[in-house]
């Protein structure tokens, strides 16, 4: 039950985009068409679901203070947590590379549409952010996996919703200065207000 609640929290209440502003770059850049938004969103879900548990293992077995005890007693006092950023970003970059190769093999069409944005998943703040939150909140491995999947799904939900709105927006009359980024920001704000109504939901 706790895991379900954690998933709901990650998807709706603490949505990566709408509550923490993470992943905004690709969220703004790839949200012009629903089809590409779905493609990128799914790739993010996949990468997040895999990298958060991997980083959890890394944190527990290598980086945490005293984590190296398994290698021998003389390592018990070593604290490598300052290496966290470099190790996490390396795992993420490697996973994104893998996803890129898989997509290129399985669906060349999607690979073509996503283009430059696939490698950019590596510098998507939502992914590094989830791993860092996972450490900060002391999740267990099960919670880490659910949290990774939930944050990814939250991102997918937000980017697809925004893409759907922006497809309609093409036909509306927006003031010149507000076109593009400005109106997208305001819409994201409105979506944020809508998502505020989920606060407090639990099963």
């Amino acid at each position, binding site marked *: 039950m706790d895991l379900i609640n954690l998933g709901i929290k990650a998807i709706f209440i603490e949505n990566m985009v709408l509550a923490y*502003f993470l992943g905004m*770059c690709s969220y703004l850049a790839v949200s012009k068409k629903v089809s590409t938004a779905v493609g990128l969103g799914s790739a993010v879900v996949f990468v997040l679901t895999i990298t958060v548990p991997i980083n959890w293992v890394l944190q527990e077995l290598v980086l945490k203070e005293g984590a190296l005890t398994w290698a021998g007693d003389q390592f018990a006092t070593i604290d490598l947590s300052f290496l966290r950023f470099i190790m996490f970003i390396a795992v993420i*970059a490697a996973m994104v590379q893998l996803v890129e190769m898989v997509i290129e093999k399985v669906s060349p069409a999607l690979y073509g549409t996503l283009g430059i944005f696939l490698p950019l998943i590596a510098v998507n*703040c939502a992914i*590094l952010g989830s791993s860092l939150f996972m450490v900060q909140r002391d999740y267990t491995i099960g919670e880490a996996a659910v949290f990774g999947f939930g944050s990814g799904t939250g991102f997918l939900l937000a980017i697809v919703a925004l893409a759907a709105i922006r497809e309609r927006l093409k036909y509306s009359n927006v003031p010149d*200065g507000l076109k593009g980024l400005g109106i997208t920001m305001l819409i994201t*704000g409105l979506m944020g207000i809508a998502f505020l109504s989920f606060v407090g939901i639990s099963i």
Partner: protein
Amino acid sequence: MSTEVADKPVKEKEKSEALLSKRRRRFVSDPLNDDNPITVQVLGICSALAVTTQLSPTLIMAVSVVFVIVFSNLIISLIRNLVPGRVRIIVQLAVIATLVTLVDQVLKAYFYDAWKVLSVFVGLIITNCIVMGRLEAFAMGNKPYDSVLDGLGSGFGYAWVILAVAFFRELLGSASIFGFKVFEAIGIENFPTNGLMVSPVGAFMILGIIIWVQRSLTGYVER
């Protein structure tokens, strides 16, 4: 008139460029307004807005980002001819991650309270697209000194936007500036604070409005 110029001896060597020539001043001044990384290029919004509820964490974040941009630009520019094109992204990420780790450890040592709040977001400077973007677009092809200026420009362009957002959010959301209760000081009791400004929604709205105002002034229209 032109003969007088021709009579002068032709300069043998090209004079070295002034330390702050017009071209170089533009590296710093352009990103502040016309080519602002946040409001025009749409980069680096990710890690920034989350810290903008209060001014003081925002200031720490802004200083950290300026530091990371300037020094990563400098380092990448120094080694740009040694790095093979295929591995440049990894090299850039490694340089950025090292600098961010440095910032994180300094904060942990000297500003422990701020570090407890900010640690996750300081880590997210690694994935701040502005840093990567400047390394790719500028430092890989320019001399170290120019790259430092470019880094300063982008850093300050980023800093003023997030400080402006934080100013309005703290003023309207908590009725204070840097924790100082301004409205009570000037005699307005019970200033009605707006809870929406403390929530993330306020940041989206204020940034949207800043973009609107700025683009109306500069006449930039996105197609």
